[in-house]
């Protein structure tokens, strides 16, 4: 009984991990490309962006 419970737990955790890994790979690619563009882009002068704009 305990073994079957453990087996079910393992299957669930494996499924969560696998789904999560696939989604995380997407996050990795999308955010890295986006952030790399931000990293190499030049900022607009403060006057244009608005001095009070924090975000």
């Amino acid at each position, binding site marked *: 009984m305990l073994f079957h419970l453990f087996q079910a737990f393992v299957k669930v955790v494996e499924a969560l991990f696998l789904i*999560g890994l696939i989604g995380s790979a997407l*996050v990795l690619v999308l955010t890295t490309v986006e952030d790399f563009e931000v990293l190499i882009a030049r*900022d607009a002068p403060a006057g244009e962006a608005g001095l009070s704009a*924090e975000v």
Partner: protein
Amino acid sequence: MPSPSQPAQQSNRVRIVVATSVMLTFISFWRAAAIVLNDLGSSAFYAGGIAEQAIGKSAPWFILGVMLFSFTVRAVYVESCSMFVRGGVYRVVKEALGGTLAKLSVSALMFDYILTGPISGVSAGQYIAGLINELLFTGFRHGFLPVKIALPENWVAVVFALGVTLYYWWENTKGIEESSDKALRVMQITTVMVVVLLGWSAVTLIARGAHLPPWPLPENLRFSAEALGFLHNRGDLVKMFGLFGILIAFGHSVLAMSGEESLAQVNREIAHPKLKNLKRAALVIAIYSFVFTGGATMLGVMLIPDDVRIAVYKDNLIAGIAMYQAGPLALRILFRIFVVVVGFLMLSGAVNTAIIGSNGVLNRVSEDGVLTDWFRRPHRKYGTSYRIINLVVGLQLFTILVSRGDVYLLGEAYAFGVIWSFTFNSLAMLVLRFKYKGPRGWKVPPNLTIGHVEVPVGLGSVFLVLLATALVNLLTKSVATISGIIFSAVFFAIFLASEKINRRKHAHAEQQMQEHFQLQHAETVERESVGIRPGNVLVTVRDYNALHNLRWALEHTNTTDQDVVVMVARLLGTGSGEYDLSMEQIFSDYEQTLFTRAVSVAESYGKHVSLLVVPARDVWSAIVQTANALQSAAVVAGQSTKMSAEEQAFYLGRAWEAMSPPKRQFVFHVVSPDGSVKTYRIGPHTPTMKSEDVHLVHRLWLDLTRLRGLEKMHHSDIVTLALTRFARDYAGRDRDEILRTLQMEEDRRRGLAPAAALPDGISPPPPTSPRPPAGDEDKSPKPADAEPPSPPLTGP
């Protein structure tokens, strides 16, 4: 708004303006990245060795996998920081899941922070002990030593870790000055080491041939008994479930990304444009740690032979890499010494970060009423929250002794705090996607919109990986699970009990406070909100037993003409700086007592004072920013117990220089308990000219105006010409000669009157800071016609 001369006459209560925005100095994304990397990068020194002991030779692939996954964890932190500029675990979890889970998540975070110190200290000790033994062995082999001597590395590491922890305990008790310069410098040195390490290793691998570690497949995993935790009797299960084995191995490598949470701490200080710079910092951090931590672990397996890698270099893997490079032994030992120096700098820095971080988080929960005010009471002499520091350091010293220098044991336990604080944070962010309706600067992609519902695919995926890893770690990391649960439960119980006590106490205190004070909230400090006139006197106070500077200011000020503002800078530590505090949190029991005393002093002189509380990360920056915002003519501070008046003026002048324009000059008075006062001018000002200089200018003017065409010349024209020629000579060939002459003049001045420059008991300023950058002491006599006489406390 009541006028300053008619203070709150409608009520007997004293009005206090409480500013809730922390006064910060902003830093570039490079500096922010350096601060985070000092913490995150330090795990490169021990994560590889720990992972290989647990899962075998394919560990580097898992470390690389974890470092890639850390790119996604950083995205979660970027989203949380784009929602709350002060978005740490406690704030985010509390917002999403309520106080109980927030307390639980902070307990896990505290476990992480408290273990960061011991693991870093012990690891640094292992690198040093390993180097000493290597040198002793080399000495013996070459006949310099008659007998073979080897130090017990674990105990050397324990002694070293205890020493470093105690050193930083004392520094933090005194109130260490945090500096992004230091972090940047350490990262520059580390980068040199990383470049040499990668370059030299590439040459060695080309010369000897490269062999990659076994691929990260279930059949290549070699779990140690400890690595299976509660499953150690059922190793067959792990083989049966292939992916489960991979998951266990991933869980044993997860500590490589510890330190990522520091990103939320530095976010607040990042300069405009904040979100863009945060993303830049996060990307730099992710790439750097991928290359450093992932690369170093990979090179460890590729360069160090199997028979010595774990046996000799398990706790100082990078030192092992240095020793197995191609080249002469002397050069390899030299590089190893460099590695140990860098390791010492980074890992000792991490010990300090752990104390500062724990202190900050506990201060924050204390301010939220979760810990009693007893913990937050400032040190009488240094004003730091020494009781919290004592508690944290006490727990760290205990952990170091219990670990007996075993880095593996510490690493296993450490992973518990790391994974659970990440899991709580990502769960909270997921909940907030549906619950939080406020502004959000950025979202973790991708997001699918089905009907009217947006499904956070990316954020959900990151959470699933973290959750699965955290659950599996519960089973496979028995030491971490038992110690982590006990620790978190004890902290959680303390938080619950303290909160209950505080609620009762605060209800009474609040009633008392409301009878005496009227709190007025202001987002930022403005002269109008404080209700004072320009040219006021700002008096900074901290210790209610040392209000002599306030007494002096009141004695020398006619408050009918000039307002007096009493200011308390509420200092926030690194961890707490990421959060915004509520007005009641900023105005706590301590401030209440302090202001009660201040008001009594003012009443004893029959004079009115305005009261102001300002949250700040840096006291100097807070003072100059407040003085500027209030258009103060003078700032009056008490003599510090930690530094001389000259040093106080130096730090204030430096903060003034760092402040963005428009900025105003002011006079800075430092009052010592015996009543003596030293005065400095902060900011550029008309120099006080000696009477012989004035006469010289006058003689020149008399002589020049006799000449035809120069009759209408002014004294100022002579000064302008002299200065212009001086600037030209200084920029040209005569620079060295000018400097020599000035130095001689300075030496002569100091040699003639050293006692006059520094009163008894006041030490001279440090050699690197000879005088305030924008303020010089005003002690030479003024010529009668140079300036009109100033009121006692105002500047020119």
